């Protein structure tokens, strides 16, 4: 029971991170129907910017942890968002109306480009960020095993929940969200009705990137280390989460993220940690084969 509870706590934390990335996939898919293959790299860049941000804070003598976290969070979101914006502008927008695999190939190109750009600029070795939020709280002890929830985990949950709430509000209740949903339904019609489609798509990428940056920062704080390659696996898993939840569906992405976190942690905890990545890939394959619309998505009707 104690072991289970501890795993559950860990899984929720990991799931939060995946959910934040998954939202980026699902939003972009919803609006332009493409898999933004480079989204994992955006997450990785968010992690690096956070790392550098924390180090700059340390160098400037900002020692209050909450202040540093908020500063770095804003910094990482803002500057990673520029990456999201640029990627859409440079690599995807020119391809609208091109043949159907073109944006995906371009996205793979962006992914390779970003990975190696960061490797060139920052080196291939993993970068340790050190322990930023320390300490925790022992919930209960059983079977000689302490079930602990760390302040860090609580921070991650709080930030994730707050962001998701804010974000859901943004989509549901603001003009921006309305325009975005309009573009999802029918881009041509939306543009006829005066929605600036280009701007809406750009903003979708910007928001997705900002959330991925938060995920990158959480990842850095949770594992204490980032490297140029973290985007690949995390990206695939978050994409799996988006597909599992039903791609195009925001609640689906959140649910999917949590589920993937649960599956991964429990698989590693109870079966084998070697095959935990296989589990994620296997779920991806199985969901796409048997239920491509995911848990909360709507099935697509082929238009002839």
């Amino acid at each position, binding site marked *: 029971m104690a072991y289970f509870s501890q795993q559950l706590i860990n899984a929720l934390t990991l799931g939060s991170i995946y959910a934040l990335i998954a939202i980026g996939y699902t939003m972009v898919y919803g609006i332009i129907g*493409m*898999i933004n293959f480079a989204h994992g790299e955006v997450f990785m860049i968010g992690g*690096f*910017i956070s*790392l*550098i941000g924390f*180090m700059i804070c340390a*160098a400037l003598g900002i020692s209050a942890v909450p202040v540093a976290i908020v500063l770095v969070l804003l910094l990482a979101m803002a*500057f990673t968002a*520029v990456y999201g*914006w*640029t990627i859409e502008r*440079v*690599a995807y927008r*020119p*391809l609208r109306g*091109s*043949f*159907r*695999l*073109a*944006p*995906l*190939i*371009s996205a*793979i*190109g962006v*992914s*390779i*480009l*970003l*990975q*190696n*750009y*960061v490797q*060139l*600029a*920052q*080196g291939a070795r993993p*970068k*340790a*960020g*050190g322990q930023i939020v320390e300490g925790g709280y022992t919930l209960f002890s059983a079977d000689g095993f302490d079930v602990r929830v760390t302040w860090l985990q609580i921070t991650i949950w709080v930030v994730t929940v707050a962001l998701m709430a804010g974000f859901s509000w943004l989509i549901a209740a603001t003009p921006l969200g309305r325009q975005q949903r309009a573009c999802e339904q029918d881009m041509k019609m939306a543009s006829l009705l005066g929605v600036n489609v280009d701007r809406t798509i750009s903003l979708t990428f910007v928001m997705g990137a900002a959330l991925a940056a938060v995920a990158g920062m959480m990842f850095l704080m949770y594992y204490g280390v980032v490297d140029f390659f973290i985007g*690949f696996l995390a990206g*695939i898993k978050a*994409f799996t989460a988006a597909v599992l939840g039903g791609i195009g569906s925001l609640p689906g992405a959140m649910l999917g993220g949590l589920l993937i976190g649960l599956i991964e942690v429990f698989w590693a905890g109870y079966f*084998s940690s*070697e*095959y935990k*990545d*296989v589990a994620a*890939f*296997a779920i*991806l*394959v199985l969901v*796409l*084969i048997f239920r*491509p619309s995911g848990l909360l998505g709507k099935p697509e009707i*082929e238009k*002839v």
Partner: protein
Amino acid sequence: MDARLPPMIKDSALTALVAAALGVFIVGFKTIDVGTGGPVFDYQLVDLAIAVVTIFFGRLGLQLASVGLKWPAFVLGIALGAVGAAPLKLPSTFLHWFIVLAGIVIILRTIWPWANEAMAKARHSPRGANYGRNFVKFFGAGLLVAAVLMPFMPFADQKTMDLAVLILTYVMLGWGLNIVVGLAGLLDLGYVAFYAVGAYAYALLSTQHGLGFWTVLPLAGMMAAAFGLVLGFPVLRLRGDYLAIVTLGFGEIIRLVLLNWVDLSNGPAGIGGIPGPTLFGAVFAETAPAGKTTFAEMAGIPFSANQRLIYLYYIILLLALVTNLFTQRVRRLPVGRAWEALREDETACKALGINPTNTKLTAFTVGAMFAGFAGSFFAAKQRFISPESFTFIESAIILAIVVLGGMGSQIGVVLAAVLLIGLPEWFRDLGAYRMVVFGLAMVLIMAFRPRGLIAHREPSVRLHPVRAGP
């Protein structure tokens, strides 16, 4: 002052600003590891500033060229080139290259409309079209002759031959993947998995059961094809982009299984001591193991290390040519035409009574088979394999070759393989930038030339024979 100038300057400044925002953390603050106290910075803000200024002028030059202000653009391009080439004391050689490249890009952009018009004119004249067709034909033939004679050229030292074998391996993989991606239009991101199956098939069968290369080669191809069939069957009804991701998943699953199923694959330690291919039973080594003869003894010539390499070269050349010949032939068969038709419009295919799943499956399986052949060659050449060699990046490189060359173009794949594999090996300094260039090339090709460097498609059959050129 031209009224068009201020908005251009504003746009260039914005571009530079975005570039600065992109680079400020990732490039500006390079984290370096010192001792155990965690990383500290190596500031590269000056480098960044120079790059941003270059981007400003680069963008400005492109804008000038695009509104037809040719001469200012041209002068700016030359100026940038000169600044980059000048013996200034810039913080890194990279920046010199960067500035020179910016200049070259502006100059290319300036002359592009003129070049484009000339090319379009040439393409549309019957003579030009014939010329293009003949060029591809003769270029291919010339390339083939050069490839056959290559090992006897005076410059064919060990390094060159090694590189030639490497390039040919990628040419073969590119041609194999071209069947799947170029002809059938199925984006397979896990192609390397079948390469791995072929490699491990040979490695295991040769080291544990003593089977020779030529025995295993067809088996390895069949095993890879079987994998293709089994993996392809459930997923080939998926839409293009989902298919891509699922194949990526399969590729990673196979790699992770090889990594973790230590009893079978020896895990991350890999399999060593794989025998090389033999020629009529003769081995390529200085001394033969008991009961075997060496090639040098058999042929009555002194041993040299190059003999093995030349033999490997001809094997991969042969395998690649078989792949090519197969593709050329199959394109003219109903199945090949159905592949291309599927790439063009799956719905229409269904309406014509073509079974899309079966047709895709044949392409997928055949492509996998050729990867299996290439894989067992790879194992025989390297004599050591481990899961390291079969990562997603490998799949991406092969895909980049196909995409850059022009999906469906056989000669394009050769050019792209030489460009993407050969050049970085020759210019070692470029090695570190190789993958960046790969990624960039994929993006640019999709934006500007989505049908690849060689976009010409020769019909699989003609009703009217081509008129002979005047």
